């Protein structure tokens, strides 16, 4: 493991009775994408805002790029970029005005600022929208200008708070490409997400957080391994044999088999890979033809369910207020 880009110990923040962040220890090494995965209200934004020096921790410590977020806030600010969860540029201004504003605030001359803004707009496919007010941008364009605004001075560490929430798959892919591009150039990205596949796709390491606490940490492979061997997916030639196949599989695997959306398919979580071969043999002995079978790793969805006892995308009740 290289040097640490972020290190926190016992980080806490409460709002009244809500323990938004309830003691978080993180160690994020430099380079690559670190994913913070958690449902709505888990405390992701609060954690990021403390790391970006916007919010003072109630307790605990955090070092970002070696600087303390409270004592050396200014050093942190000049080295990180923050793309907040909500609008992080001025909607009334045009794309180029927003970038020029930030460039001037970071010390660029007017002329160099304009050049920098133009380069950024080009790189993010926004050159044609440069002179349009941001409020007239589409969702994907908005997200791109939000991210571009964090790169006016190339940061060593970038915080992206739910960068793809609400985007369609095409725009989500574009944001993923940007993230991969930034990492390829040596940046460290801390990204929060509610989407399991996003963490799976992008992050080298993932912290799963729920109710302000880290409940699991590791690579996506490690997280998956921690909840068991995965599942067996089977597809039958004859859909009408599915009920019987369910019985056979359940008998051998000693776990319930579940019908899939496909009327000829079913799947079962497995705890013991040894039994898989036996279950397939048993199906064939019972005269059930199998056309396809696959042994899948558990999805992060299953990981989340196993870790928290509730679905990742389900909102905890106390959030209703």
């Amino acid at each position, binding site marked *: 493991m290289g040097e640490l880009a972020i290190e926190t110990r016992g980080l806490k923040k409460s709002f009244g009775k809500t323990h938004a962040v309830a003691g978080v220890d993180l160690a994020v090494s430099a380079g690559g994408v670190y994913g913070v995965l958690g449902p709505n209200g888990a405390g992701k934004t609060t954690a990021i805002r403390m790391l970006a020096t*916007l919010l003072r921790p109630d307790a605990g410590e955090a070092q970002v790029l070696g600087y303390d977020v409270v004592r050396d806030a200014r050093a942190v600010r*000049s080295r990180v970029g923050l793309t907040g969860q909500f609008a992080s*540029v*001025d909607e009334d201004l045009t794309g180029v*005005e927003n970038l020029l504003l*930030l460039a001037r605030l970071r010390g660029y001359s007017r002329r160099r600022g304009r050049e920098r803004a133009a380069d950024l707009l080009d790189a*993010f496919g926004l050159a044609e929208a440069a002179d349009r007010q941001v409020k007239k941008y*589409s969702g994907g364009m908005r997200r791109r200008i939000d991210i571009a605004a964090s790169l006016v001075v*190339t940061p060593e560490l970038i915080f992206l708070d739910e960068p793809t929430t609400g985007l369609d798959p095409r725009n989500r892919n574009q944001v993923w490409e940007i993230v991969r*591009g930034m990492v390829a150039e040596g940046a460290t990205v801390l990204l929060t997400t509610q989407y399991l596949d996003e963490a799976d796709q992008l992050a080298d390491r993932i912290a799963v957080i729920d109710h302000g606490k880290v409940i699991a940490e590791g690579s996506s492979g490690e997280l998956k391994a921690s909840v068991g061997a995965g599942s067996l997916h089977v597809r039958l030639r004859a859909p009408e044999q599915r009920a019987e196949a369910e019985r056979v599989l359940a008998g051998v695997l000693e776990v319930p088999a579940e019908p899939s959306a496909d009327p000829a398919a079913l799947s079962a979580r497995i705890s013991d890979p040894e039994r898989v071969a036996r279950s397939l043999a048993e199906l064939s002995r019972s005269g059930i033809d199998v056309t396809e079978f696959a042994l899948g790793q558990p999805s992060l969805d299953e990981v989340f369910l196993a870790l928290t006892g509730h679905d990742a995308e389900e909102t905890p009740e106390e959030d209703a207020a």
Partner: protein
Amino acid sequence: MNATSAEQASAPVTEDALRTVLLAGERPSRPGPVLTSLTFGWRALLKIKHVPEQLVDVTMFPIMFTLMFTYLFGGALAGSTQEYLQFLLPGILVQANVMITMNTGITLNTDIQKGVFDRFRSLPVWRPSPLVGALLGDLVRYSIGSTIVITLGLVLGFRQEGGAVGVVLSVVLLLVFSFCLSWLWTMLSLILRTPNSVAGVSMTVMFPLTFVSNIFVDPKTMPGWLQAVIEVNPITHLATVVRGLMHGSVPAGEIGWVLVSSVLLVAVFGPITMVLYRNKK
């Protein structure tokens, strides 16, 4: 051209271009507080350019008030509308500026709600500069408002006896006072949750503040306790000063009063605002 077609026309993110911008290792030196404040002031002007509707309070309020008070109440209050206009106009100038200061708080609160303030607060700049810059931008609004009131007054027959010097001095004092008073609204906007509640509370403060003063009528006929209240209202002193300057006298003592209350406003509400701003949740 709509957003969708433009988006399709524009090339998606290109790897090479992205690499180039990321590798540009330029690290300009950190700009000072004056430059960053002025830059935020520039942002405020851009917003006026893009959303000119926001000047309604700056233009319509003063016009409406001048016309309404002069023609509805002028005759009854001062014998003739012309006589009343001589008394009222400097007062309206004060009221217009004080009203315009409210906008500061509402704008700031909107910024906070939308999230763009998080970005500003995450920048390595002198911390008060987003607030100071917004207030500097507001100076333009006060100037527009003042110009409109004075022009309207002259058209309606206001006799401007203090000359250009009187006008310029009045406007300068109005700008100073308004800038200082704005810190009250920035403070409120950091305490209250929504732009609407900021507007509501501001109005509740604003109406007594401007009406319980000598802006509209001479307080001589009012009960003694009310006169006492009016006497400590800084708006009263500001109106007296502007009235004096516009009519050609220099009420030095009153000018001192206005400057002292301006300094007090900043000294009290400035630091509170900054503490709230730093610790904003």
